[in-house]
């Protein structure tokens, strides 16, 4: 009985590991896209080669598990009651910055300001003690980065 139970546990573990591995592969299949930084100022080209979807970008900005831009920034999203006070107000980000400048600031704002609080949303390396679930992964996918860029460029 005991042996049978432990076998069950073992099987569950193997299954679990299999699923975890599958997920890991799934995430890794979203391969890290190389990009070119122009003059430490911008990333001119879309990470996906396509324009993002501004409506989806707005959702990413709201979602606490994804962009969570609202944690630190004020955005013209009146249905969300809480907007953070840590970063600049982004209500007119689309007039202040070009798409390329916005893209660089989302991908890795530390290139522009090494001391910034803001995380690099598209940098899976060079980090300290990342917990297991997030190791080797970017906060946003390339597609989500493009969606947020597309959303922010609409803010004029």
């Amino acid at each position, binding site marked *: 009985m005991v042996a049978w139970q432990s076998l069950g546990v073992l099987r569950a573990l193997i299954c679990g590991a299999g699923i975890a591995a599958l997920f890991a592969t799934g995430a890794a299949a979203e391969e890290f896209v190389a990009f070119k930084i122009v003059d430490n100022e911008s990333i001119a080209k879309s990470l996906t080669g396509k324009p993002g979807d501004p409506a989806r970008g707005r959702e990413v900005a709201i979602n606490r598990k994804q962009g969570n831009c609202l944690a630190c920034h004020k955005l013209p999203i009146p249905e969300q009651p809480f907007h953070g006070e840590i970063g600049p107000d982004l209500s007119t980000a689309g007039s202040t910055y070009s798409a390329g400048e916005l893209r660089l600031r989302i991908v890795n704002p530390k290139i522009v300001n090494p001391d910034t609080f803001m995380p690099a949303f598209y940098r899976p390396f060079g*980090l300290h003690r*990342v917990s297991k679930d997030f190791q080797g992964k970017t906060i946003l996918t390339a597609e989500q980065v493009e969606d947020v860029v597309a959303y922010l460029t609409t803010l004029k």
Partner: protein
Amino acid sequence: MRRIALAAVAASGLTVMLAGTALSDETDWGAYEVGDKRSGYTYAATETRSIQDDDFENPAMLWVDTGQELWDTVEGEAGKACASCHDDAAVSMAEVGAIYPVYYEPRGKLINIEQRINLCRTENMKAKAWKWESRELLSMTAFVRNQARGRPVAVKIDGPAAPFYEKGKEFYYQRRGQLDMACKNCHEDNAGNMIRANLLSQGQSNGFPTYRLKWQKVGSLHRRFRGCNSQVRATPYKAGSDEYVNLELFLADRGRGLPVETPAVRN
């Protein structure tokens, strides 16, 4: 002495309540503000503060009471209670809560109150160490630290404690996790700012162990460290690890002069 300190804390609490809910930078926080250091109390909601102000309403006092009972309870092969050696905690433990963690020669490193309690248990009482975050260890820690309530935090960071203080400081400024954030990003650079629905505080440690409304129980400072580390998607250290005890010393010094508030009540 303790009664006087308590009365002073209670009175300043009352002043705060009378001052009303409009909190500006000019609010007089009494003992809860020392120079530019502000206790988490000053960032808490009015209702939360009023729970802390009243010992009969403060749920954490149940842990303190349990600690008092355990203080007098004989345990272990040596047939001793804490009181067998330390007698009246109000006298013998009057300072402990304000000066720990301390450098401990036999181990060549820092120990905090939890670890001192367990050392007493294993070495002097010949009893089993209590588990981290157990009801017993939280209660005894809260009880011991409560004896210093109202006293200004005054840890020693020179001499043999100095290198450990430096390690704690290094931890505080080290970015970590997928979100790549250091303690200082929130608690030094942004105290007083909203991070979405939450008001960031200076992250002072003078009220721990603390009753957290979110936890619905008393929790240790190291539990809070683990929570913070996980939130930035970093692998936390173990409660009681050297890393966290060193950080504990750095934080205590950072809040030097703030009164011990244990057991505080926080969000």
